[in-house]
């Protein structure tokens, strides 16, 4: 039977591309009509299908998406940055986002750098730290250049303990510090005795306790699986990690108990995790990094494998050119502010946490986390629309991460630069907002779109590919 004869027997479902009146007259007859919000194609955006050397971009993207999906991000242990992060040394400071020199760093990043120098004992006070930072004696490098990611300022110094995640399917590893909690904290550029004291405690008590527990788990903890479960529990694992943090505590709880004799220390560790809804963020991020990095180096791909901000610039990298940054000024976040703050206090968009959107959760999975709108603004309906809109610019849908409210449809996965440019839809990001001055901390949370320029420049590069 031909497709025409097949159609004769079926209920019609009509896509309306154009006049609203056409859609109306059809839906008036009780027929399901999907009325497109059609817009003319953007000027000067050719439809790219293959590279100059003849590689099919769709095939390359298929490979990238498949690699990301096959990734198995497992927490396998912990270590001290200088010992485990490749290239790390005593006079190196890692930071979030694309590369940046001291002069152009924003307030929170500068604060975090100075704080780290003091914490490391490289400087005695803030003015010494400032001097040292400007002296050129410190090497600044993006986390992303070292298989790492860091939230907000994302600062990592040599003696900090870090999580080690391994992508079991590909064998690559990713690193991230431990989440400090809210308030005056280093990742928001916080300096001062209480910041250093907390970091010290994390190194002296929290890290060994967790490390001992993890060592007793030969298979580690499957973080990807926790993310998948958390998406079914109202998290999107960027700005909402409440369920995932609980799941993590559940996963590590018995091992913690078995391997730690001192109940008071144990209680403090559990309390620390329990009181920080974002504790899991520093696991969801390196999990994304571990899965995305395995997809890098696929020739002809137009998929984004890094989106990151340093509070001054926003940068993206592509699977096909993993060494190259496409950079634009970081945007201002529209969102809800804590009572005493307004957007005047806000620093531009900052942090590596956009790795979550890149890996197919975070803002991409907002439909799974309607409650988040209390935090970032908007309505649950808008959360749904955000995810639906993102399907327009992703190459695939995640087979393992699904959204109950969309009938367990896979999350939008693999931001395709071509689609971004063709539709003019820029990726949406859920994010916290840092105060522009060092050390004040978080002033709110909200939503913004990635800057167009990164994608424009990347598109130009793809044309030449």
């Amino acid at each position: 039977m031909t497709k025409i004869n097949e159609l004769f027997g079926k209920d019609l479902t009509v896509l309306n591309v154009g006049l609203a009146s056409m859609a109306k007259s059809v839906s008036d007859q009780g027929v399901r009509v999907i009325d497109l919000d059609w817009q003319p194609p953007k000027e000067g955006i050719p439809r790219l299908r293959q590279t100059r050397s003849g590689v099919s971009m769709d095939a390359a993207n298929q490979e990238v998406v498949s690699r990301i999906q096959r990734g198995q991000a497992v927490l396998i242990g912990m270590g001290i940055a200088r010992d485990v992060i490749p290239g790390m040394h005593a006079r190196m400071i890692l930071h979030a986002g694309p590369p940046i020199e001291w002069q152009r760093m924003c307030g929170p990043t500068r604060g975090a750098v100075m704080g780290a120098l003091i914490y490391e004992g490289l400087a005695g006070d803030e003015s010494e730290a400032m001097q040292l930072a400007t002296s050129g004696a410190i090497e600044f490098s993006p986390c992303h250049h070292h298989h790492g990611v860091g939230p907000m300022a994302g600062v990592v110094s040599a003696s900090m303990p870090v999580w080690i995640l391994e992508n079991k399917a590909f064998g690559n590893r990713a690193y991230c510090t431990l989440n400090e909690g809210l308030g005056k904290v280093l990742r928001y550029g916080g300096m001062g005795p209480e910041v250093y004291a907390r970091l010290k405690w994390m190194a002296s008590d929290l890290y060994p306790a967790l490390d001992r527990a993890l060592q007793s788990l030969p298979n580690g903890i499957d973080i990807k699986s926790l993310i998948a479960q958390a998406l079914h529990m109202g998290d999107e694992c960027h700005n909402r990690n409440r369920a995932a943090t609980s799941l993590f505590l559940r996963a590590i709880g018995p091992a913690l108990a078995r391997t730690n004799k001192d109940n008071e220390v144990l209680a403090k560790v559990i309390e620390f995790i329990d009181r920080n809804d974002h504790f899991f963020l520093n696991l969801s991020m390196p999990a994304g990094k571990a899965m995305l990095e395995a997809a890098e180096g696929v020739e002809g791909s137009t998929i984004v494998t890094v989106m990151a901000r340093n509070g001054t610039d926003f940068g993206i990298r592509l699977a096909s050119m993993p060494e190259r940054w496409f950079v634009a000024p970081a945007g201002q976040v529209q969102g809800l502010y804590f009572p005493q703050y307004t957007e005047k206090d806000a620093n531009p968009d900052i942090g590596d946490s956009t790795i979550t959107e890149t890996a197919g959760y975070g803002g991409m999975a907002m439909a799974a986390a309607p409650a988040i709108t209390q935090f970032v603004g908007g309505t649950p309906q808008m959360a749904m629309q955000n995810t639906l809109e993102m399907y327009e610019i992703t190459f695939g849908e995640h087979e393992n991460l699904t959204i109950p409210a969309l009938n367990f449809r896979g999350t939008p996965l693999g931001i395709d630069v071509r689609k971004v440019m063709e539709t003019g839809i820029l990726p949406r990001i859920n994010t916290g907002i840092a105060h522009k001055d060092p050390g004040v901390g978080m002033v709110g949370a909200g939503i913004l779109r990635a800057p167009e320029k990164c994608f424009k420049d990347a598109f130009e590069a793809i044309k030449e590919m």
Partner: protein
Amino acid sequence: MIVKTLIKTSEYHDSVSLMLVARELSKLESVQDAAVVMGTEANKSILADAGLLTEEAGAASPNDLVIGVSAPSDSAADAALQKAEVLLKQKASSVQAGEFKPKTIRGALSSNPAANVAVISVAGRYATDEAWEALSHGLHVLLFSDNVSLEDEISLKKYAREQGLLLMGPGAGTTILNGVALGFANVLPRGPVGIVSAAGTGLQEVSTLLARHGVGISQGIGTGGRDLKKEVGGVMMLEALKALQQDDATNVIVLISKPPAEEVVRLILDQLAASVKPAVICFLGGDASQSALEKIPNVIPARTLYECALLAGRLIPDEVGDVKTFLDAENSGLAKQAQNLKARLNANQYYLRGLFSGGTLCYEAQVIWKEILDIPVHSNAPLPGGSTLPDSTKSRRHTAVDLGEEEFTVGRPHPMIDNDLRIRRILQEARDPEVAVIMFDVVIGYGAHPDPASELGQAVEDAQKLARGEGRELVFVASVTGTEEDPQSLSRTTSTLEHAGVHVCDSNSAAARLTALLVSG
């Protein structure tokens, strides 16, 4: 007395909201006087007279909204202004987010994988790309848009055929799939007649004539007007014909078109011969292909759309026998009516003017006029070998104008949607002292104007008034293409027209015949 003002800089609210705010404020017991005005000099002077002009208000610009109140206390004045603010905001906050709409076909399909038909009506230069996109995703396409090049049409249709998909159009105004009207179409019963038509209004006329006699259709597929050109090769008519031949719900097939290219006729005949299903073929105005058609046993040729409907619906009682006998009986009735109407005309009113919105209806009328009239009818869309009107905007002697032709629709809506052009043309024809009768078609249904009869009826009354002012009477003849179930309703449309003095016939064919009889013999 405390006087306070609130200035809303460059804020515009409609007059009704402003009035409501003013009323609510003056209703407040604590408010002595209130004013809600734009901050112009003239209004400031009024405020000054009323003692409401504060320094702030004095500094307002004409683009600022000034709300002034006087009240016995500071707090009462503040409360009043706060109330004003709330009232103004009330309206603004009522907006809600709409349903999510995908931006691309790809995006829409990812959320709605069951979609099977795309209806494309964006501007022509974008339509081809969208049609490709739809076909490549396995969707059948109704390409409503005009201004798609012939080359694009050919390659789209070839690709559609390879994929086994329908590409209806471009410029496919009418299609009925599984009983659903897409584009310009009517509310019709389902039934045994399957129609493929290269002519939109032809499909509408035949399907509505059938519907009025209780005969439904299985499918009505519009191929677009150029499908039967040599270059396109009738690709879609052939594909749709094959599908209807295999369709169990279709017992009778109807094909409608202006005369196709010769090689295309051959292809169609071959395909018709491949099945025993009866097929009524109306190649309107194509006398040449008539004989070839008659050679195939299951094929019945029809000369007009009306004949086509009669034959396909088997509407002629057995005792009457053939179409000719049936029509002769009907025609004698029309002849009598014409005789009566002729009495109203002056001796020097010679000519008919046909003003059509439907191209096929214009064509059908010309087929009938050619047969009845001694002198040729001029048209901007003449029959093969007919006389082309040198200037479409000016009629000469007997004239048939298809106002849906591109020359009239570039940069303006189609006459089925917008009656303006026809109204003006009716008035123009009414001024010509040699005109006897003005005929027009009224197409209703989905996509058409919501109430064409009222507007055209008004035009007829105006035109008649104009003619009477010059000492003569005009005859107006029309037919309505539509069904009772259409949103505009056949009976309502008919009675509105009759009320305006129009003689409404049961078919375009009858209307054309009556019109011709008024100016012949």
